């Protein structure tokens, strides 16, 4: 590794306790510790976070946009997975 090919890291920030980490962006750094420090300076300059994850970008496996339709289609014809699919008589409470 030379200074010109620092790996890319994806940065996830938890904005406050009780919320999940959300993708904030990416940055280059030679190792995880530097990635974390750089992420602190880059993505939380205004107290935007209470916790940061950094993940090597190469560790991310993504679904392909070309398969988008076939990949997500199976959920499309299953409206019965939603509560609004069911008709309940008027006046029934707590359901």
């Amino acid at each position, binding site marked *: 590794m030379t200074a010109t090919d620092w790996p890319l890291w994806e940065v996830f920030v938890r904005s406050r306790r009780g919320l999940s980490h959300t993708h904030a*962006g990416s940055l280059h750094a030679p190792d995880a510790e*530097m990635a974390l420090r750089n992420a602190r300076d880059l993505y939380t*300059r205004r107290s935007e976070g209470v916790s940061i994850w950094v993940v*090597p970008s190469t560790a991310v*496996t*993504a679904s*392909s946009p*070309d398969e988008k339709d076939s990949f997500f289609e199976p959920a499309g014809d299953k409206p019965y997975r939603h509560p609004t699919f069911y008709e309940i008589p008027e006046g029934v409470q707590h359901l």
Partner: protein
Amino acid sequence: MATVAYGTDRTDEAARQAAFDAAVAADERIEPRDWMPDAYRASLVRQMAQHAHSEIIGMQPEANWITRAPSLRRKAILMAKVQDEAGHGLYLYSAAETLGTSREELLDKLHAGRQRYSSIFNYPTLTWADVGAIGWLVDGAAITNQVPLCRCSYGPYARAMVRICKEESFHQRQGYELLLALSRGTPAQHAMAQDAVDRWWWPSLMMFGPPDEESGHSAQSMAWKIKRHSNDELRRRFIEISGPQADALGLTLPTGEIDWDEFKEVLKGNGPCNEQRIAQRRRAHEEGAWVRDAAVAYAAKHGEGKPS
């Protein structure tokens, strides 16, 4: 990330173009792994690189005043602002990298003079009031340009712009407050503020780019929804909002016409500070090499940071 290979026969190409056109027409965002026309990708790389370069070159004229800021308060504000500019550059370089161009390649092109940065940063900061004029006018013009970019059709660029626009507001207000303090100060301070506004007004108007009829990239960029408004439209909007702001400052805006010959000269490299800016950028990059090397050596020794 691994990419799934696919064929590139003509029907596929036409179908992908149609899917791209439909997404843009429906105001959906294009994301990094979506198919996109080569010219769209090239246009984005050009614009995002120029934008990123402007952020980091823009650190220079303001950093010029950090050691001479008149109070600790002003110094802390200015350092935070210059640090923000570095951050904005990094957001934009990483957004540009999603298009398959490395940051290193973009920096090389900047250093070799093969990619541009905004012409505004080729003007010198002669007095402390210039720091205020940059915040109010230069950042103000940048905000006018950038707010519509938050709805740009390319997702990573739009997201970077949302973050940048939130931070730019502080930049503009600190500049305005600085000018207000000078304008209400001694006659000499007032004159200094007016002089800074007189010098930065025209270059700020040039930041919107050439007049619409001479703007080579505009029509296509607007069709792709990278750009949402024309140069002249944004320039007009900026002029309209600046008038009342100048009144409240107790300062006047110059009257007259934009000198487009000056704009062309600065673009050609003949502005007051073109050479100084790029030489300083190269020097900073070279002098930082040992820090980058040390970080790499440390990572190697501790067995982390495997190359991607």
